[in-house]
């Protein structure tokens, strides 16, 4: 039996997680299915050919693709509980750890599970972790006072991280950071190392401050639920196992390149500073408790946001994280 499977990702294959979908996930599925009598004919649709970034969920939900690399970060309304990491900065910097536990929560936490199902999706695993977010600026940051009145670009939910610092948070995206720092629209950005080097952001914002915002969960593999439910259990298991193999390979690759990328940026003239605990404490303490606000808003809309927040924080503390601020305990 041959299955025709369309797999969709909004980002192009130069992005690490898409590369691994093609080079780790698909071969792993094919290998697991050898000798089972089922083969899969893959149609790989990356880089916006079928769905752009943030459109993967709808493409899979409507059945235009069977499997998608769904970015929860870009679907904050439909996959609200999955965005918990972006509302809880300063929790943990290890993206491998975050993604492993977020994958488990997708299975164990009722609200996270329900969010996938409400959109007609079956979560397969293969969490996309994002390495520790950094503050990159065109001026040195020695204290929080240095940020007063500076315009800092940040991706959607991370704008909240700047509230209370005196900086002006501007919602922006990766594609225009370079030019907008260069011309002075922004004085800096909140960004992660594995995107900063390819974007050459250190050329225009050479002061890299490791504030410790933390690693994030940005999404994972999901399948159309109706389609998935109709599959042979052997095939279902092959897809889940391959997603896990993909997560492990992707994060090993990511960890290796983050260290390398920071070194390259340093060798090209960037200054990397790690802030001390007092700085980090002051920043975290100065923020509004946006996690609580977010959880309450979810509570009001029928999703148990407070429970999701608590579950996530407890999971991470149990896994060995020492959050700078315990967002769930205030």
């Amino acid at each position, binding site marked *: 039996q041959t299955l025709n499977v369309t797999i969709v990702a909004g980002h192009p294959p130069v992005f690490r997680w898409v590369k691994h979908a093609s080079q780790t996930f698909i071969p792993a599925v094919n290998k697991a299915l050898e000798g089972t009598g089922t083969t899969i004919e893959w149609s790989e649709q990356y880089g916006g050919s079928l769905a752009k970034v943030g459109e993967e969920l709808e493409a899979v939900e409507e059945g235009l693709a069977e499997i998608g690399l769904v970015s929860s970060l870009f679907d904050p*309304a439909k996959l609200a509980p999955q965005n918990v990491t972006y509302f809880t900065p300063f929790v943990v910097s290890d993206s491998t750890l975050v993604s492993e536990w977020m994958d488990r929560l997708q299975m164990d936490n009722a609200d996270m599970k329900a969010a996938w199902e409400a959109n007609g999706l079956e979560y397969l695993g293969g969490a996309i972790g994002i390495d520790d977010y950094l503050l990159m600026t065109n001026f040195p940051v020695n204290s929080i006072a240095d940020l007063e009145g500076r315009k800092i670009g940040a991706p*959607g*939910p991370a*704008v909240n991280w700047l509230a209370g610092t005196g900086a002006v948070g501007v919602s922006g995206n990766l594609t225009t950071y370079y030019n907008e720092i260069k011309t002075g629209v922004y004085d800096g950005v909140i960004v992660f190392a594995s995107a900063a080097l390819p974007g050459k952001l250190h050329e225009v914002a050479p002061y890299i401050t490791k504030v410790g915002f933390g690693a994030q969960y940005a999404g994972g593999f999901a399948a159309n639920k109706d389609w998935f439910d109709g599959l042979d259990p052997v095939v279902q298991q092959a897809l889940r196992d391959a997603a896990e193999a993909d997560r492990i390979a992707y994060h090993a690759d990511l960890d290796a390149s983050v260290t390398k990328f920071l070194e390259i940026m340093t060798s090209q003239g960037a200054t990397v500073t790690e802030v001390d605990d007092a700085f980090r404490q002051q920043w975290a303490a100065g923020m509004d408790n946006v996690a609580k606000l977010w959880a309450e808003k979810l509570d009001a*809309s029928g999703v148990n946001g407070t429970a999701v927040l608590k579950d996530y924080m407890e999971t991470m503390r149990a896994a060995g994280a020492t959050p700078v601020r315990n967002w769930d305990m205030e």
Partner: protein
Amino acid sequence: MEQGALPRWFLALQRWVDGITTGLNVAGTVLIFLVMLLVNFDVIGRNFLASPISGVPELVSMSIVAIVFLQIAQAFRKGRLTRTEAVLGWVERRAPRLRCAVDIVFALASALLIWQLYAASQPLFVKAWVRGTFQGTVGDFTAPVWPVKLIILVGCAALLVQLVMFALAAGLRLLRGGAGAS
């Protein structure tokens, strides 16, 4: 089109339909002006008052979809949708009735297509309404997306009606021997 070539009841109907189309068009036009002001306030707020307006990218990206679907029926009625007249013009000079027939076929095929678009867009509106889907970020700015999905439906319906009126006009001209084709 020579108005005199068409019956009075049709012209009355066309006037009524055009009134609605123009109303939608005006709404879209006002929205363009508001988008311009919004972006300028954001630029001024960010540079001189250290307070950008939250949610401008989200509002602008939702507005453009609304603008296009509010105005698409009017754009069609005013002949702004691109089509090549090379073959059609040649046909019209030699066989005006055939030209009318081709126009009817094209307009009805397009109407069917827009009907499919309408039918497939309707569940997207329902989902956005039922689930309360929003754009933006909790804590910063959020806006519901259902109004835009509703405007897509309204715009498709208005375009569908204009396409049917176009086919009807071509049909009436065909009955009168193909004179006065637009």
